């Protein structure tokens, strides 16, 4: 489809604005004015509706196709939560309103959403206090690392090092680094869990924190987590939980019970808020009591008379990390989702997410190499190493799946698995969908042996075939020049 600017017709309009109902009193001094107009497009409403509807049809989403993108929890997003977030009482509410005198009383509904969501996240994760402010998962990680830095500073601890397993999400080392820490990587053992014999001696008085996710990015639960917590706490190092994989453990395991000190939760994964083609997400952060005083301001408190109020008087707080209270409408949708499902519904989520992943795992384990055997949790990781012997790589398998009408799994992550294929089916997919996927994957495995040469042409059914990424970097065409 042609770029929108190419369709522009001088003089055409998409929106009619009201006439100016006030007298024009003065003009802006020309020295402050731009020399030429911003070259926005000139199109009718219908032109624009056709353009974007056309673009939407070139996209896969959870609503159109199976989307087993590992680590991303692409589950179905219930429509009712969109309807709730669009209620005028929420969507038209100015965030500065509660900061006016007595303004808190004007936003009781919104403040209650924040407070009650925080309470429920505490109960779900076993933490003592939450903040909804972080605007995405990685922003939650950064906030968590800032909290840990503030904790150590307050205690006079001079700690600079954060230990992170080599299978971790890339955001973990990046966030810890941006918070001012040095990163040490700890290898994964043969059983697919953090190598305890290597980890334990690494922890010392210099260790500020250990960042983990459990289950980890291999989809494996670490039963030794209490040992790790104890080893960390012996040196007053904090244990951080990356909540990206929380969909595996709702009602089955609470990070707080295993002595994790800080956690972030990806509402756009576990709590079914749509990912929007890259965002917005939300990454609320939970802490244990000893870190609560450092949480970002503002915080929402519930007074004894049941009134919700914004509180700012936390002298040890790390301060503002977001302009307001987080990605509120994302939080609202997640809160609605939690209320919708209730305790049993959330347990069903994890049970079925784990069942679906294991079903895929056992159905495909004879066709694709399994780098780390064992019962997986919400996702399973295969390697296409066997297929590479015929020249078929993980990327080729991904592209072959596209032609079978499915979004591919995550490929080449975790980095420690060569030719990784990381499948996260989520709980909302039916057995029929999984069976279709499994059949496609088996057929692809067979074809990788019988006709490996055909793979480089995939995908063939999409609006474009494989794109020239080298040329993209070389030409740096990031903006349309008329």
């Amino acid at each position, binding site marked *: 489809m042609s770029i929108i600017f190419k369709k522009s017709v001088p003089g055409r309009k998409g929106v009619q604005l009201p006439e100016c109902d006030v007298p024009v009193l003065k003009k802006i001094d020309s020295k402050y004015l731009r020399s030429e107009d911003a070259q926005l497009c000139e199109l009718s409403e219908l032109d624009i509706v056709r353009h974007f509807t056309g673009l939407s049809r070139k996209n896969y989403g959870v609503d159109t196709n199976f989307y087993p993108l590992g680590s991303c929890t692409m589950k179905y997003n219930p429509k009712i939560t969109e309807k709730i977030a669009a209620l005028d009482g929420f969507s038209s509410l100015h965030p500065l309103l509660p900061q006016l005198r007595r*303004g808190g009383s004007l936003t009781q509904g919104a403040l209650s959403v924040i407070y009650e969501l925080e309470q429920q996240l505490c109960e779900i994760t076993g933490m003592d206090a939450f903040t909804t402010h972080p605007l995405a998962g990685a922003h939650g990680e950064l906030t968590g690392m800032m909290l840990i830095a503030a904790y150590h500073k307050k205690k006079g601890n001079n700690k600079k090092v954060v230990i992170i397993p080599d299978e971790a999400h890339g955001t973990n080392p990046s966030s810890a680094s941006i918070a001012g820490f040095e990163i040490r990587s700890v290898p994964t053992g043969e059983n697919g869990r953090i190598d305890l014999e290597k980890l334990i001696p690494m922890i010392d008085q210099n260790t500020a924190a250990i960042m983990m996710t459990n289950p980890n990015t291999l989809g494996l639960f*670490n039963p030794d987590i209490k040992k790790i917590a104890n080893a960390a706490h012996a040196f007053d190092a904090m244990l951080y939980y990356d909540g990206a994989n929380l969909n595996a453990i709702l009602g089955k395991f609470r990070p707080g019970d295993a002595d994790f000190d800080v956690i972030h939760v990806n509402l756009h994964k576990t709590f079914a808020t749509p990912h929007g083609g890259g965002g917005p997400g939300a990454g609320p952060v939970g802490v244990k009591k000893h870190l609560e005083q450092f949480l970002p301001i503002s915080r929402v408190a519930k007074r004894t008379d049941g009134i919700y109020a914004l509180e700012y008087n936390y002298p040890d707080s790390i301060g503002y990390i977001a302009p307001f209270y987080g990605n509120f409408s994302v939080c609202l949708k997640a809160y609605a989702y939690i209320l919708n499902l209730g305790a049993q519904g959330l347990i069903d*989520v994890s049970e079925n997410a784990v069942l679906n992943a294991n079903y895929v795992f056992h159905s495909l384990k004879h066709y694709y190499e399994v780098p780390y055997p064992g019962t997986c949790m919400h996702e399973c990781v295969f390697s296409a190493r066997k297929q590479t012997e015929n020249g078929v790589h993980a990327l080729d398998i991904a592209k072959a799946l596209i032609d079978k009408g499915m979004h591919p799994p995550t490929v080449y992550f975790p980095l420690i698995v060569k030719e990784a294929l990381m499948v996260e089916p989520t709980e909302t997919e039916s057995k029929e969908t999984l069976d279709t996927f499994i059949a496609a994957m088996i057929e692809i495995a067979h074809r990788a042996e019988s006709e490996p040469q055909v793979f480089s042409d995939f995908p063939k059914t999409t609006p474009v075939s494989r794109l020239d990424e080298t040329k993209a970097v070389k030409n740096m065409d990031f903006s349309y020049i008329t």
Partner: protein
Amino acid sequence: MSYISTTDTQKKQMLDVCGVDSIKKLFADIPPELQPKSFALPGGKSEFELHSFFQQLASKNYSHLVNFLGGGFYDHFIPAAIDALVSRSEFYTAYTPYQPELSQGTLQAIYEYQSDICRLTGLDIANASLYDGGTALFEACQMAISATGRRKIVMDGGVNPIYRKMINSYAANLSIELVDISVSHGQSDRDAIFKAIDDKTAIVLLQNPNFFGVIDDHSDIVNQCHEKGILAVQSVYPVAMALLKTPGEQGFDIATGEGQSLGLPLSFGGPYLGFMSVRKELARKMPGRVVARTTDTQNREGFVLSLQAREQHIRREKATSNICSNEALCALRAHMYLSLIGKEGFKEVASLCYNKANYAKERIKGIPGVEVMETSPTFNEFTIKLPMDAAECAGKLIDLGFAAGFPLGRYYKGMENYLLIAITEKRTKFEIGRLAEALEAVVCQ
């Protein structure tokens, strides 16, 4: 309700394949002592109950007040077509476009959005979005620290105080020196800024229009910065970019801003949209995703995520930023907004804001005891000085149906009697008149 379609019979079939007889056994890696100590959540609610519950909560929020609150976040008109189009679930239920063949819709839209931002700001390259205007400004600081190897940041007092607070938080553990420069007569204080910048300074942060709504041309400050090898960033209000001199024209290296005004609802603080554009030379220092136009194997035009070697999933602790999820759907809204409003419409919106704000100043000027701050030109927001505490005054105006503005004493010491009033194209002559009358009634009480 958990939106699960697997039946009990199917579960049994699946468990057979897994070689276990119960789902419980799939969780055997979780030791018994780590079973949840509690999971005391309420039972689920039906869709109908859920909707009623939230309707009630929504009705407790005073979203119906006539809105003169701004502070960088404005009550602008949003064309209905945006909601209709952005509700296409092909857009909103997709993930980050890692598989470009399945994501050409998102990718082309983001490329077009990047083009919009370049056109608004007069700079070469825009990224695919950041969380909000404040985090975007801090990302600009990180870029400058990396590009210059220096660690001092000079912040103009006209930069949104919320953003300056955020930067303070982020810089706390990074051995960064932060210098705050107060404004003079509402504008950037040249003398103080020139005195503050030196060969240790990485970047100067400016805003246009600034937090008081004041318009400026920062070309002279940018020149001084460049002579000392310092980068300069301007945080801009995108609607004003329809008329005002662009960051590019003023010589800025980086432009950032809050895109909420471009078709995003206020939604009690988010999700919003941080935008950023830079000079070409800074492309590889830029945070976040960026979409490039390229070609496929058959030489057809197509779009991909590019310059990924900067990003966390490749470079881990050496990445330019830790950002992963951004605000893609908000960027899509902004692009839809700018496309619908169009070249002429965008200028009309900006002119309506400007003209109505001038009219409001004129109306308020006549109120005894109220002074409109007019030493410097303003865009759609302006400051008034009251003969009483502004927070108290704004509180009383709520009872009369107005969110009358933002009391500046909250962020500026000594400005307890000052109120910041924002006007958008949505405010009518009638509403402005009523506000003036109500304000007069309150101050003359």
